[in-house]
């Protein structure tokens, strides 16, 4: 009797949690949930076809935003290769997602360079570049930062950059943040939640 009395509220609580878990804005993410803590996807840049694009052009798609540069031989390609693996694991669902690779080195990363680069990784990757103020504004918007390391004599230089991947839902709302060391399973899990939610307009 005593046990049953204790059991009922617990059952109601569990049921409540389950119901809550089904609500659109309380998805059970495994990665860092940034819903409501980061601004919506918004930018004015140039895509890898040389076309002017804004954040609104990617509404209806789940967007994976990542800052990097093409002259980065190790971490940037590794991260993009990992995102490719994740996209492959999503199967046909991946068509509802886009990898947005934003160059923090617009001086060297022209749309043509970006086009060859992103296509070497995944057909659903988009290379975004623009004038330095526009890319800087975007990175600041997501409290990301990048700095150019002192150049060497031959004119080459390295760029430190934020290593996070910001994931936005189909409405352009920031939802989760992944580090490059995040497991593929967790990324696939959270992208499933976002891609299964609501139909593509």
């Amino acid at each position, binding site marked *: 009797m005593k046990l049953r009395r204790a059991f009922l509220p617990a059952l109601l609580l569990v049921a409540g949690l389950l119901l809550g878990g089904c609500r659109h804005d309380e998805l059970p993410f495994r990665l860092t949930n940034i819903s409501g803590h980061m601004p919506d996807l918004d930018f004015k840049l140039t895509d890898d076809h040389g076309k002017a694009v804004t954040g609104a052009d990617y509404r209806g798609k789940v967007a994976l935003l990542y800052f990097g540069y*093409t*002259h*980065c*031989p*190790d*971490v*940037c*390609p*590794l991260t*993009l*290769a*990992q995102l*490719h*693996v994740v996209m492959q694991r999503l199967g046909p669902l991946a068509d509802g997602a886009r990898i947005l690779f934003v160059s923090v080195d617009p001086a060297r990363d022209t749309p043509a*360079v970006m086009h*060859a*680069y992103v*296509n*070497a*990784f*995944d057909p659903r990757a988009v290379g975004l570049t623009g004038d330095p103020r526009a890319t800087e504004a975007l990175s600041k918007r997501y409290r*990301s*930062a*990048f700095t150019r*390391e002192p150049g060497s004599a031959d004119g*080459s230089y*390295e760029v*430190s*950059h*934020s*290593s*996070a991947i910001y994931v936005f839902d189909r409405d352009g709302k920031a939802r989760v943040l992944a*580090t*490059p*060391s995040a497991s593929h399973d967790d990324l696939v899990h959270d992208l499933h939640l976002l891609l299964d939610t609501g139909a593509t307009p």
Partner: protein
Amino acid sequence: MKSSTLSILFAGLLLTGAAHAGAADHVHASHAWIRVLPGALPAGAYVTLRNDGDQAVALSGASSTVYAEVMLHRSSTAGGMSRMTMVDALSVPAHGEAVLAPAGYHLMLMQANATVKPGDTVRLTLNFTDGSTLATDFLARPANAMDAGDDHSGH
């Protein structure tokens, strides 16, 4: 006559051996691969070095006839920022291993004088701090490869 010829030969062999003896003699390279990027972009090269010797050895860099410049680098992530730093030498402990792998130590290959395509083999000469060298064949792999592709443990 015959024995003196043999001993001269033997002495010659010993000398040849002495001239080349060095750290590299005890080092075995495996999982050697290059992540090929489009155009003239710098590429990362990775390899696992096993040292069967009783002394630690240190990799100081590499050279290649295909790439004008090769640098030993290390990627690191701190405070959510990724950066690359130059490395003077990477120690391979006695009876131990050093791993050059994505997001860590790697050789940065720059200014290719020929187009390197996935599937190609590129020979790099690994240089050790004692002056010895180890010629190693690296397999060129696609940009979106995750590893050397010679095992399935990465999945």
